[in-house]
Each structure stands twice: as structure tokens, then as C-alpha cells.
């Protein structure tokens, strides 16, 4: 953390995007996290992604629970809506908000404690209901706020800062997200923004439940030898399956790639996801194979990153329960109380 607010002065070339905002306009308050925390890099990536996508800050709702990660929405998108929920309950609040107003962009920010321990059930149900959101877990494998106990995502056998080995099996959030059919599943590393920013952009544009597990080293309690979530370990064991370029519909596709190296996936809104293959034969549209690959590599001690799964047909909660297109919070008395004639008609249909 720093004591000083970031000076308002900015680089002379800082330019506004099509929405009229500079990148600095997407910043929030000064971070109070430890210096070097991976979470701050994720905040910076969210800021960069939102700026690049010309997102209107007031059309975003950022929701979080409790923990270091859940503090971060204070440090980005200072002009967006925010809700800091009870520990582990962010998915319910997000689901409710999404049902009430389907027009906003929902950004759920959570941590390994908030989503894999106390909120594991919430996480699972929110994914399986298919809420249209970007769910980011800032995953550092420890409870940083309470001084570094193992969290539920810590690898079995990894070593704590005090030298204790973790006896428990980890919760694999990516595996659960795949299993419960999130339609966009990715894993990234906070120390690699070139990978992370396009993934966040693609997730924002994805019209369904998007889940990104971001390995985010805790410099204070989980950046030592024996940790599997340290800067060094993740860099040494990162097995990226692909590199994503997010291409907006208005951009021209220029780069040339040899056939077989690249997969282009068109999105609903006309944007393109271009995946440069890093792992031969990895097919991000095949959910079962994706699950196998992630498990296989994990067993070999590797951390698979990249866009792991993208459903060809995305759908979300509103489609499943057939809500009206108008956000519910905008329906007036006329729509909600259509009068006795309409009631008669419904009653007649039930007779």
C-alpha cells in the first residue's frame, strides 16, 4: 500500500476512448493491499480491459464478498456501482441484482477463501444457474488477512511460510466451473497482463457465465520456496494452452498465421476471439477434453492457463427462465398489474 494518493497528473499522451474516458478515469481509490500483491495487477487489468472496450462506468456493477480480493473493487472502476456482501455470499447478491436489472455488466470479484471455502455452495449454484456475469477469483492459496493459513485451493503438499505442509486436497475451481457448465472458463496469472487483459475483455463480451481463475501470488504469505502460488513457481510451471487476442468487430484482422496455428471464434456481437495455439491438439470448444487436459497437467504439477473452454452456444439464466427483455426494475405498474381482464384470461387458461 502507499500513503499517498496516486497523483492526478498523467502521461501527456493519455487519450480518451470512444466513451470519452481515459484509462485513469477507470481507476478507483489507492490500494491498501500489500506492496506487490497480485490482486493489484488484476485491478489494473480490469481497468485496462474496461477502457479498451469503451465501457460506460455507470453500466457496471462490481460485487464482492470478504477478503483481500474482495477489497479490490474499491481500487478500480471508482465510478461504477459496487456491493460488498457478506462473506461468500457475493454470488447470491449478484444473481439477485442481475435478475432485477439484466442490462448492467456484472463483475463478481472474489477470492479463494470467499469462493472455495465459505462460499463454495454459492459459487457452484451461481455457475450452474448460468448467471450472465464475469466471475473473477483472485486465487492466492492463503488467507492473507489472517496471516497466511492455507486456503481451500492450496495444493496438497505445498509448504506454508512457517514450513507446514498442506495435508488437504485442493478445491479445483476451474474443474468445478467446467463441470457445472460455465460457458467461458479461463485461467490466468496476475503476473502476465498480456494474457490476462484479453481474457477479461473476452469474458466481459461473453453473453453467459464467464469464470476466470487468476493465480495471484500473495507476496506477504505465499511467495516462498515450497509454495505453488509464488511468482517464481507459477512462471516455472505455467503451461499456457493458447494465447488469446480479442478483436473488436470494428478492427480489421491483419496478422497472418499458418493454418492450424490459429482458431478464430466469432462472437455474437461481431467481435472475434483469435486463439493462437500453444498446446498442440488442445481444443477449447471440447468441454470433456478440456477437463481431462486440466486434470492431466495438474497431476504433472503444471498450471494450465489460457482460454480453457468456450461454449459454442452461450445462454444465460434469463433465457432459461424466460424473463422479459426489459429489465425487471424498469417494469411499471402497467406491465406488472395488467388489470382484471388479463387476470381473467390467465384464470381461464388454468381452468
Amino acid at each position, binding site marked *: *500500500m*502507499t*500513503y*499517498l494518493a*496516486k*497523483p*492526478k*497528473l*498523467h*502521461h*501527456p*499522451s*493519455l487519450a480518451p476512448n470512444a466513451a470519452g474516458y481515459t484509462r*485513469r478515469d477507470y481507476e478507483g481509490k489507492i490500494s491498501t493491499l*500489500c*506492496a*506487490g*500483491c*497480485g490482486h*493489484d*495487477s488484476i*485491478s*489494473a487489468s480490469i481497468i485496462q480491459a474496461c477502457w479498451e472496450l469503451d465501457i460506460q462506468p455507470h453500466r457496471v456493477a462490481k460485487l464482492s464478498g470478504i477478503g483481500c480480493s474482495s477489497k479490490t473493487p474499491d481500487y478500480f472502476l471508482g465510478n461504477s456501482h459496487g456491493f460488498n456482501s457478506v462473506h461468500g455470499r457475493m454470488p447470491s447478491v449478484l444473481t439477485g441484482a442481475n435478475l432485477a436489472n439484466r442490462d448492467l455488466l456484472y463483475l463478481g470479484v472474489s477470492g479463494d477463501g470467499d469462493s472455495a471455502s465459505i462460499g463454495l455452495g454459492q459459487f457452484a449454484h451461481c455457475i450452474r444457474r448460468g448467471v450472465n456475469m464475469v466471475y473473477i477469483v483472485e486465487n492466492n492459496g492463503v488467507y492473507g488477512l489472517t496471516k497466511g493459513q492455507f486456503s481451500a485451493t492450496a495444493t496438497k503438499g505445498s509448504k506454508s511460510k512457517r514450513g507446514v505442509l498442506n495435508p488437504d486436497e485442493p478445491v479445483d475451481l476451474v474443474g468445478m466451473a467446467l463441470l457445472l457448465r460455465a460457458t467461458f472458463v479461463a485461467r490466468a496469472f*496476475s*503476473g502476465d*497482463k498480456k494474457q490476462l487483459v484479453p481474457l477479461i475483455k473476452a469474458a466481459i463480451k461473453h453473453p453467459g457465465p464467464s469464470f476466470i481463475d487468476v493465480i495471484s*501470488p500473495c*507476496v506477504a504469505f505465499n*511467495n516462498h520456496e515450497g509454495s505453488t502460488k509464488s*511468482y*517464481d513457481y507459477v*512462471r516455472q510451471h505455467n503451461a499456457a494452452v493458447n494465447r488469446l487476442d480479442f478483436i473488436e468487430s470494428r478492427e480489421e484482422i491483419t496478422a497472418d498465421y499458418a493454418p492450424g496455428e490459429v482458431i478464430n471464434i466469432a462472437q455474437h456481437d461481431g467481435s472475434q476471439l483469435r486463439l493462437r495455439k500453444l498446446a498442440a491438439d488442445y481444443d477449447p470448444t471440447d468441454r470433456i477434453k478440456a477437463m481431462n487436459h486440466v486434470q492431466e497437467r495438474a497431476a504433472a504439477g503444471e498450471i494450465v492457463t489460457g482460454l480453457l473452454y468456450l461454449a459454442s452456444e452461450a445462454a444465460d439464466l434469463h433465457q432459461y427462465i424466460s424473463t422479459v427483455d426489459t429489465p425487471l426494475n424498469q417494469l411499471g405498474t402497467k406491465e406488472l398489474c395488467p388489470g382484471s381482464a388479463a387476470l381473467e384470461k390467465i384464470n381461464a387458461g388454468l381452468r
Partner: protein
Amino acid sequence: MKPTDIAHPDYFHKVVDCQWACPAHTPVPEYIRLIAAGRYGDAYMVNWNSNVFPGILGRTCDRPCEPACRRGRVEEGNVEIRKPVAHEHGTQPEPVAICRLKRVAADNKEDISARLPKAPKQKNGKRIACIGGGPASLTVARDLAPLGYDITIYEADPKAGGFMRSQVPRFRLPEAVIDEEVGYITGIGNIEVKTGTRVDSLKKILAENYDAVFVGTGAPRGRDLDVPGRAEAAKNVHLGIDWLASVSFGHIDKIGKRVIVLGGGNTAMDCCRSAKRLGGEDVKVIVRSGYEEMKASPWEKEDAIEEGIPILNFLVPKSCRVENGKLTGMSFEKVKAEYDAKGKRNLVPTGEAEQFFECDDVLVAIGQENAFPWIERDAGVEFDKWNMPVVDKVTFQSTNPKVFFGGDSAFGPKNIIWAVAHGHEAAVSIDKMFSGEEMKDRPLPAVTVISQKMGIHEWSYDNDISAALRNKVPWQDQKLTLKNIKVEVELGFDAKAGFAEAQRCLNCDVQTVFAPKLCIECDACVDICPMDCITFTENAEEAELRTQLTAPSLHPDQDLYVSEKLRMTGRIMAKDEDVCLHCGLCAERCPTGAWDMQKYLIKMTHAGPGCRKPQRKAA
């Protein structure tokens, strides 16, 4: 790119743009911090050691530091910060008022006389003559006298000070300030000033067996006007610098009601403003060039306009009209600027009718020249085809090994601060000569780089950047200043405004020092940097690397600070020094201390033990 060699004294020196641009390399941020701390005497001494005349320069310097100041570049593009405020000049990005802060130190200092050097009891037996009592000679005297040299200064005018006394008008520089600062030098002790003594022969001086002679006689000859009618109008056409000197010494105290000043330099500005105070009611400046290309400093032009003096551009003097033996006016030809294929400017007549301006007096300030009628051409000093002495650019020695040149007399007209810089260098040469050392073998400046870390987030400098705009120096009421040539126009910053202005300084001497071995590439510094200065990327040649930066490189003359390869990814850290605020947030956010804020202080090599080879002490 190769990793940056931060051990070389020049690397961090260049980052301190103001200090690098200052000919005398005054440690600007250091004295500005002392001003902010209210330590005016200390701030004054930092200046005095470097530039010898802080009170004088704080009013008159050409301030090469200010156009170089990073603050100007930093405010560029930050329109929302530069909201127009009623009392401000405007919304243009502006540098720190470095020059006027120097005056704050001089005006508010306590008695510093006890801190000034004194002549040593043990003299070294060497006698040095300084010809001319201006800033260059006085600097040589100040540097050498405390080392035991006996100095004799020859000054043609009644008092020492040279250009500062004779040509800078009193409404810009009060007599008392000159007396004080010249007095600090002559007060050292072993300096004799022979005032009212014009030297008319170098040979005679050499015959007096001085061990060395320093020539600091300035550029004393004003360039004259050559147009029809000039000779007939001689009584009312005056050479600017001579006229200013006569005004300074009280020989002239009035001028006609209608005055034309010819020329676009700072001398022309001094002439027109002086004329306005000596009875000139309709004073105008008429210049060949356009307004922007005029040689005068922008602020001096603005000050003249502020006093109601119009500046007419693109007019070339053609003739003086004399009626009944008296000057009645001048005719001018209208020109326009045309640029040839090489970008060279030519002034071509527009073909319009000549313009006539009535006047009673004309002041000619169209340039100054060197003149050495007193140096015999067989005195061993070689002259080149432009009649300038052949002077070594490093040592300032002429072809006569005993004779040195400095200030305007060495390489033509410049300004006070350059004269001071020359004086320092010539003094080093003289001191090395008598120490039996090779004069060209000049030691690099001494540099200290010290961490400013006091605690986890505490630094020994104020890193909270002020967003304030440049403060304007308050002026004395024009009703008073335009009536009396001795009333100083600028009042100077008071302590409060001085503090506010000092807080605009970015502390560029507190350097961002990077230790690649400690870096874990967490990106914290990249994320926090308000100016997007820092990039982690693959190494490449400089031109290529500049295209890979987080924010575009706007000024290729500003260095990139490049680290060696980083341990984990093999990338490098590249920092564009251009618009760094030196706020230290990179260091505050760095979990491993790979970034540190370290104050860089450079001690220029002056005459004395520092310029000589280290002597081995006897066992």
C-alpha cells in the same frame, strides 16, 4: 539496448534537466527543497557555490534551466489540472519558477558572511591579473583567492560588476544587490580591485610579471546602424549598451518624448523600459524579425509589453530623417519571412510603401561585438579570421599559455551564467597549471547517491506532488516604477508564494534506482506509476524498444533507463525518464525494494584539491 550505466556521473545528471541545462550546473532541486524547508541561508550557499551571484541571477538570469524543466513537460496534456484560475497567467504548461526561487533564497537569507571563504594566512605566492571586473573575472577571483592566489582585478568603470552593473537597469537589479554580492568576493581578502583603470595594453600587464592573466572583458562594442541619415542624426542616435551604461552611472537621466528602440534582444528590452522611465512617453520597439524569433527572453518581451511598449515586427530600418539638423523620425521597409528548401529564413520585402515613424531619439540595440583593441597582436595571443582570440574550449587557455579568456570575451556574447561557468573552468585550468598538472586532464565531478528511505513509506523528501500552477511574481505599482528608474519592478515571491512554488518542483534529483536482482516482476510499479514510465519487455535496440513502451516515447532526447535481463523471464525493465514525477510510488509499491529513491548530488569540479590528482599522504 545495453544496461544503463548509472555509475557514470552524467546519467542521473541528465535526469535533473534543470541542473544539466545550467551552464554552472547549479543543484536546483537541492536548493528548492531548502527553500521549502525555510533554510534560506543554506539554499543561498548551495547557489553561491555553483553560480556565485544568486541574488543577481535570481533577478536577471537567462534561465536556461526553465525551458528544460520537467514540470513543463509533465503538465503537457493535463488540461483538467490546469483549470484557468483568475490570477494565473493562463493554462499553458509552465516550468517551476526556478530563477525567481533563487531570489527568494537571496532575499530571505540570514547573515551568511561567516560562511564565506577567507584568504588563507599562507599564500601560494602566485599573482593573477583579471582584466575586466564582470562575472567571469569575479568568479575566477572567488575560486582562486581562497586557495592562496593573489588576485588583481582591473575595472574601467568606477565599481566592479561589469555587465551586471553597467547594462542591467536598476529597476531590474538594485545597486545594493550588486554591491552585496561583489562584496562577498572582494571581501575574501587577497583580491585587489583597481577600479577606474582601463587596461590599454596586454603587454604592459604581462610586463608586470603576473603568473597568469585572465581576460574577462565581455563584448563591449555595440553594433552600429548603417543607414542614410545616421551620421547627421548622431546626436539623437545612441548605441544601446553605451546608453544603458551612461544611465546606470548617472550620466544620462532623460531622453526625448518619442523613442524608437531598434533590436529584438534583451538589451533592446532594457533600453525601451529604461527610456520609458526617463521621459519617453511614446516608446516603441521596432524589430526586423517576427515576434517569436526575437532573441529576447519571452518574459522580457512580456514585461515590456506589460509596461505599455508596443513591439513592431518585420520592419527593416532604411533611413533616418533629419530636418534642420535634428532627427525627426525613421523610415522602415516592411518584410516577410520566407523559408528556403533548407529551412533557412530570408526576410524579403513585401513591396509595401515604406513606413515612417516620428521620433526624437533612437536607441540601437542590434547586437554586440567583441573588441580587443588593447591586445597587441604580437603579445603571443593568436587571433582567428573573425578577430576573436583562439581559445581552448576546455581549458579556456589562449595560445599564450599564461593568458586565459572567459565570459563573453572568449566565445562571443552569451550571458552571466555562462560567464560564471567559464570562470570556474578557467580557475581550474590556472590551479592545475600551478599544481604542475596536465590542464586537459580534468577529473569527473564528485557524485553521491544516497537512499532517501526513512521508513516503510517515509522518504526524506516531500513526494506529494503539488498540482498547482506556476505562481506569478508580484509587481510594484506601475505608477511608482515608471516614474523612477531605481524602483525595482518585481517584488519577488514572499515566503508563502515561495513555498507554494517550491512545492511544484518534482525533485528530479531524487532518482529512481532499480536493482534487477531483487525484482520479482510483480508489475506493482507499472500499475502504480501515474505517468506510465515503466515497462517490462523483451530487450531490443533503442529505436525498437521505444515503440514497445507502456506510454509512447515523446522525447527521444530523454534517456531510457534499461536494466540487465531479469532472472525469471529474461525480460528487461525499461523506464522512460521523460515525464517521471519522482513521486516514489514505484518504490513504495515494490515488495522487494528493487526500486529505491536515491538522492543524487553532484559536486562540480572547481579549483582546489578537487580538481587535482589525489596526493598520496606521506607515511
